[in-house]
């Protein structure tokens, strides 16, 4: 089993971040893209908490940044999902490919 060290925690965070990046770049559904962003943010938060524990054990600044990060994630999810809902109401699908051609539809 791996030792519980900062470099192992950072490796875990990097792997989760890259998994999220893969989903962000390959999935075509807008909801799946938002879910991949949540996976990606999960890796980022782990970097905050692990640096705080291993290198800055006097103040909980990393925990504070974690709280800011989940606040931003909540706002992003709310706005993104409401945009997805409006898009679905107008076009009856949630494909990334069609959403990227929105400006051509207007012309």
């Amino acid at each position, binding site marked *: 089993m791996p030792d519980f060290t900062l*470099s192992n925690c950072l490796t875990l965070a*990097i792997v989760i971040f890259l998994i999220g990046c893969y989903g962000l*770049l390959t999935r075509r559904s807008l909801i799946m893209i938002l879910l991949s962003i949540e996976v990606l943010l999960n890796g980022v938060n782990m970097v905050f908490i692990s640096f705080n524990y291993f290198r800055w*054990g006097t103040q909980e600044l990393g925990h504070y940044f974690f709280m800011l990060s989940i606040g931003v994630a909540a706002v992003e999810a*709310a706005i993104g999902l409401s945009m997805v809902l409006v898009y679905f109401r107008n076009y009856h699908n949630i494909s990334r490919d069609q959403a990227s051609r929105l400006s051509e539809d207007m012309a």
Partner: protein
Amino acid sequence: MLSSNIVSLLFGLSSICLVILSLAVVVAFNPVRSTLMLIASFLPTSLVYLLLGAPFVGILQILVYAGAIMMLFTFVIMMVNPKPESGELGESTKTKNRINWPIFVSLCIAGILLVWQVRLRSDVLNLGAKPAQNFGDIASISQLLFNDPMNNPLTVSFELMSFLILIGIIAAVSFSRKEGGQS
């Protein structure tokens, strides 16, 4: 305190669970299943946070993330109710389970480079100071956030978050209004 063997064991098991569940989130074809996998992946994440001396953050991860944000996702997925085979998701069953090799290979290269850099500097990274005695409990977090609130920049920025959330609420409501009509 747990012994270091048990901590290593718990860390290894939860990181294996976390990586498998995150992969399942990204490759699952059905969005409902993928959301449930993401909620399940928050449990090993919060276990890692507990090991990292952050019990409050681990509880927040379950309560706020799994409880509130994922609830929002599930709600929207149920409202949109996309059928994977009808193409409403924009993903036809033909491309199911097909790996996008250029993106996969470039992300693998990025991962190898990043992990290599982390390993290269592991002697520098691993020599940190050990955390203080009452590190991470709610009393010391609230002491950090709300001590002397008039002069504490952290208090101000933490309260500004509530304005950001308020703007998010207003934006979500105004997006989902039908044009010209009520609500």
